[in-house]
């Protein structure tokens, strides 16, 4: 039994490793290779032409790409920070409730049940300039008399997309932070109050350090699929108007499937993969640090 033990976890993990190798790792190696070729879907023979870093060099010189890249990072920064803040606020609001907390918690999770594609559709409908709820409400309340072109003007479309993104993902933060708040022992808070801390000090030095690991769990989960913003953008604006809401992911899809330039698209895809990995590793490290800080075993 003892001699067998070291290899048991390996055997147990083997199926997972095989599947992931077959469906993720090997295809990614293939796409890494093809990012060094001028591969086009319409010309299969180009798959075997090696052109070195030429795809990457032309991407670096491509302003459309850099705009999309910058916009993606901007969207993620705005969305993740606001989601965190709103989630924290929401969690504290629900935690305060004396009655009906179960119902409130269920309602709070409501947006989580929506797939990104549905969130996109829903906000496409609500932000529609002609029949959308937002414009109808604004006009009926007399705040504005014109139809605001939410999804037609570049900056407004970016705002609309951010709203959709934040609406859909705040719930994850709220739920996990609420779990942290509920798991927290009450004595330290009371002790802090007795010692004369202001509510802000109590929150900053007692509550927040305790809740932080939970917030990082939410961040890590969230960073695992930041790319689902693709679904939302795809259905809301499809990168338009005139590429003003083009994100890295929609650009990759357009280059690959509409233009058929697979080699180039794979090179771009590698930027998006590295971006995702950077986000995940960053938050994973924060999570690990927060865990060791409170003395939990991984």
């Amino acid at each position, binding site marked *: 039994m003892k001699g067998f*033990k070291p290899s048991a*976890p*390996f055997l*147990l*993990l083997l*199926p*997972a490793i095989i599947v*992931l190798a077959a*469906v*993720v790792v090997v*295809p990614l190696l*293939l*796409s890494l290779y*093809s990012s060094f070729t001028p591969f086009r879907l319409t010309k299969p023979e180009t798959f075997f032409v090696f052109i070195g870093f030429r795809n990457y060099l032309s991407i670096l010189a491509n302003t459309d790409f850099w705009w999309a890249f910058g916009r993606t990072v901007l969207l993620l920064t705005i969305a993740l920070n606001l989601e965190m803040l709103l989630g924290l606020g929401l969690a504290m609001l629900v935690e*305060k*409730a004396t009655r009906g907390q179960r119902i409130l918690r*269920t*309602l709070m999770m*409501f947006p989580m*049940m*929506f*797939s*990104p*594609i*549905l969130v996109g559709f*829903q*906000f*496409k*409908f609500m932000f529609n300039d*002609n*029949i959308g709820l937002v414009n*109808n409400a604004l*006009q*009926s309340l007399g705040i504005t008399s014109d139809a605001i072109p939410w999804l037609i003007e570049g900056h407004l479309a970016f705002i609309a997309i951010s709203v959709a993104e934040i*609406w859909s993902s705040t*719930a994850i933060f709220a739920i996990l932070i609420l*779990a942290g708040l509920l798991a927290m022992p009450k004595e330290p808070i009371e002790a802090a109050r007795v010692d004369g801390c202001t509510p802000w000090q109590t929150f900053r030095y007692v509550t927040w350090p305790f809740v932080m*690991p939970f917030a990082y*769990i939410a961040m890590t989960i969230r960073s695992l*699929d930041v*790319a689902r913003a*693709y*679904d939302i953008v795809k259905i809301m604006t499809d990168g338009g108007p005139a590429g003003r809401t083009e994100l890295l*992911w929609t650009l*990759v899809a357009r280059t690959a499937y509409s233009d058929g330039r697979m080699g180039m*698209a*794979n090179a771009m*895809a*590698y930027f998006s*993969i590295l971006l*995702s*990995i950077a*986000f*995940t*590793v960053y938050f994973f490290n924060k999570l690990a640090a927060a*865990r060791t800080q*409170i003395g*939990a*075993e*991984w």
Partner: protein
Amino acid sequence: MDDNSSARLKRRLLGVVYRIGLFLVMLTICLPGLWIVLSSLRPTVEIMAKPPVWIPQEISFDAYVAMFSGIGKGGIPVIEYFRNSLIISVTSTAIAVAIGMAGGYAFARYRFRGKSGVFLGLMLTRTVPGIALSLPLFFLYVRLGIIDTHFGLILAYVALNVPFTIWLIDGFFHQVPKDLAEAAQIDGCTRWQAFWQVEFPLAGPGIASAAIFAFLTCWNEFALASQLTRSVSAKTLPVGLLDYTAEFTIDWRGMCALAVVMIIPALTLTYIVQRHLVGGLTSGAVKG
């Protein structure tokens, strides 16, 4: 006396402000969804009306009837999409959970070198954006002839779900005390028996919620499905929803109805698992 009553007034005022704030927040969260449900029941004329009609004049299920009888605007084959979604999601969930249980058990019960590294490695495969992964998969699937098939999508979804399933199930096995299985082994169970008769039933609800979470991921996935499926024989509901927008005149009511059809299974399932899900994700954050 005066201090007392003013303090009481202040407290009551704060209470009212709090309630109003809570109500507004919850309204913001629920309104978009409710609006979709309402719109799916209203006639198109009312949705398009200018100035807007706020109070629905007539409610009907016409959109649903039209959708399922296959004569909906644009003739979207909803029933086929629904069937594809169901087959693909259920099969890939079952496989992902089986693999995830083995992996999660390994993480929860064994200490081995590079554990944290392996875990991070598994998670990193999950970070690859669907659209980036779809490029090589599209190419490979065309070569292997499994593009636009259930099998191709199931395979992709298993890989998509395995890392997160392992994370969740690891958390649930962590909550089952090690001593229980050891006691069973001392009483003469083999490790295999101890797992199925002691640890599995205890972690069961957690594993069920991991399964439901995996199911929802498949049910909702769009980026991969939109590129790896082409025809009615394999398209899933999220891809079907986009069919509606591709037309020149958008049938808002029909889309709303399809959205409701998509959300109902998700809603029911999420409601069932919500408690376990949070427990599984946060296990180890405080207790280890």
